[in-house]
């Protein structure tokens, strides 16, 4: 039995330690906002925060999470930066199919938390780990800038 801090709550899960955090979140805890895309940390659809830092949950054995605080897209409604980015995402009509967008927003929150005024290059660096197959990149850039400049 493992105890995990997820979105501010301590939760106990009975799963193998090598099971990636992604599947614990999705299939055990029902937090399906975090998506599966590649399973090898190439697409970023599974991005969560570990102590505020963006991490790929698909390659993170749940046994290695330890005491670190896990935050998922489901908590972004109450997160000041998360709220502003979600709003900017809607205002700039970023979303197309939407499958990658929870991961995009998690990476954007982590980026702005660390660098409140990123330039284009910093945005590219911070967001390059997140694929969007609908290629909404131009609007992701503008939505991040909207929040950064506000």
């Amino acid at each position: 039995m493992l105890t995990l801090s997820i979105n501010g709550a301590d939760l106990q899960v009975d799963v193998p330690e090598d099971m990636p955090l992604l599947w614990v979140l999705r299939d055990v805890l029902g937090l399906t906002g975090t998506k599966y895309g590649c399973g090898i940390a190439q697409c970023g659809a599974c991005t969560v925060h570990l102590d505020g830092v963006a991490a790929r949950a698909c390659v993170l054995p749940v046994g290695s999470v330890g005491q670190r605080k896990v935050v998922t897209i489901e908590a972004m409604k109450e997160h000041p930066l998360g709220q502003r980015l979600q709003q900017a995402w809607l205002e700039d009509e970023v979303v197309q199919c939407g499958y990658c967008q929870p991961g995009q927003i998690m990476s954007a929150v982590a980026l702005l938390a660390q660098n409140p005024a990123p330039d284009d290059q910093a945005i590219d660096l911070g967001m390059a780990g997140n694929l969007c197959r609908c290629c909404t990149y131009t609007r992701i850039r503008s939505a991040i800038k909207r929040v950064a400049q506000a």
Partner: protein
Amino acid sequence: MSVDSNAPLSPSRRQLLKVGALAAGGLMIGFALPFSGRSFAEQVINEGPEDGRTPTATALDAFIGIDRQGRVFFTVPKIEMGQGAQSGLATILAEELEVGLEQITLKEAPPNEQLYNDKLLNFQATGGSTSIRSNWEPLRRAGAAARLLLIQAAAGQWQLPADQLRAENGRVLGPDGRSLGYGELVDAAAQLPVPENVPLKTPEQFRLIGQPSRRLDTPDKVDGTARFTIDLTLPGMKHASTLTCPVLGGRLAEVDERAARQVPGVREVIRLDNAVAVIGDHTWAAFAGLRALEVRWDLGENADIGSDAMERDLHRALDGDDGAVANEAGDIEQALKEAASTFEAEYEMPFLAHAALEPMTCVAQVRPDAVELWVGTQVPVRAQTAAAEAAGRPPEQVIVNNQLIGGAFGRRLETDFITQAVAIAAKVDYPVKLTWTREEDTTHDLYRPHYVDRFAAALDGEGRLLGWRHHIAGASVLARFAPAAVPPNGLDGDAVEVAMHPIYAMEHLRVSYTPVPPKALLQSWWRGVGPLRSSFMLESFIDELALKAERDPVDYRLERLALHPRAQRVLRRAAEQAGWGEALPAGRGRGVAVQFVFGSYLATVVEVEVGEDKALRVRRIVSAIDCGRVINPVSVRAQIEGGTLFGLSAALFNEITLAEGRVQQTNFHDYRQLRISDAPPVEVQLIDSSEEPGGVGEAGTALIAPALVNAVAAASGTRVRRLPLVRAGYHVV
């Protein structure tokens, strides 16, 4: 993409609309019946019923319903996969019905080809950039008819002439300020006959159409609450994943499942003809279980096929006879003999996977009474048929609950993964969610075909185009997808679309096609469909002709576009906006391309920088589109931006190759996709137009590759005739 373009379409105006009562009280308006020129719809159109009521209960699903609370339920015949079609269609309805977008509740259309066939595609599908084009007029008419009926119902109640009343925001308003909500009028309206004449709003009266509006599906997609197929859970459901034979046509021979059974959470190992499935308590158990299996395959006859062999077949086809002639005008052979000069070139495009970010996923339950699917599909009827066949049940026992789609790009026009999910679910007594790994998704796709096109142009003394011979070789998607739609000579209307009728005026033309079935892969639709192929080929070739004539590529095109003023306009606008003709530093160049497809005119200018060792930087993309009447300008821009970059990703990086019958690319590390750091800005110029709406979801995808290679030629003097660019040694910086 057109599956049956020859089928007669004879929609009668007489029965265009149906009125009926909701079972629980309320008003129903049918609009979908005349879409198909055949079968049930034809019968209704030609023979009644004369009272305007729908003949069967199932038909009610096709309808716009307004209940006694005034809520509007719209059963949308198109799926939402990111293109914004459902919101666009709701906007058209809301406009004429005089309600707000937020008053409309969307419902996914069930499989019913009599009701929901697309009138351009002639089957029930979301594809070919048809959603707005096919539904624009009938949906307006249906909304306007409902509005008229509600006004007439109020007129009856108030004993006032209907022309003194108007509708606004879900209410009918009287001259003296009194008003009634739609919900209060629906029962009376349902008893009225279908109006003979339904006047539509004039464009000056539009309050929603043409205005930027926010899509209905996006709020749930930014906070993680949107549920895709992969996110669904049913009571008792378990999680499955499969390994399918790595070689197409191979069979499962033997499985040692002992180690897999030891994986915590693994419940079942299921043997299928060509695959093995592991069922577990969670997806991870299924994935880990698959990895622990020892599987032996009977690889079958494709086990020694490689890309080289398939490419040889394509070139051999071009060296053979002309194949099926798609179009012939003048005498191209004579023109080539007599021309002041001739020019020949051959272009090539690779197999492509779709790589939707949500992998193939389907929830299936096989019960004694029914087979039920929860799946995002572009083709509900084909999904129903596939499930029925897999379960050995009649189609009417298959329930299809369509879902939001996490990327499709044509992949979810196929039903292979649905067949597999049902085959697994048939062996257990609980619902199963099948989730493919990314590796399975990449290696067991149905691929956009590899094509080779050969051109020979006849030119006059000034290098002006007199005509060309164009021979296309590649797999016929239509021959696999809908064989009945292909004539005996094998002419695939999709493969020759655009190529068959070039927008450039020429006296002599011969376009022919030789279908070359691929040996160890299956071919399918891919965003941009036929035009994706043709635009690359035609716009590369015309550019080479311009350069050979030492002419400006924009001017050279304009000279041959006399019959297409809208094409001239987008070309001029894109060129102007991109600073065409203005000097660039050494190593930089601009390329242009123009097309008329999906009912829309598009021109794109790309600016690139080519440095040492073929270091390639795409600096800027400018597009101008004339897609007729625009429903939502934000959606049009977003589709051109995203669609263009989607095409750029493939043009730069992507190629599916085969060795020993196996697809060699497996995941995003070796099937690279465009990232934000690779993505240039895309500027979209929207041309004001009152023409019929055109499609926009695929236009940008189809046009970027030729503009890109033309830009590379301008920047470096080197012509790339085969995609992707990385194959020619370019690397993106």
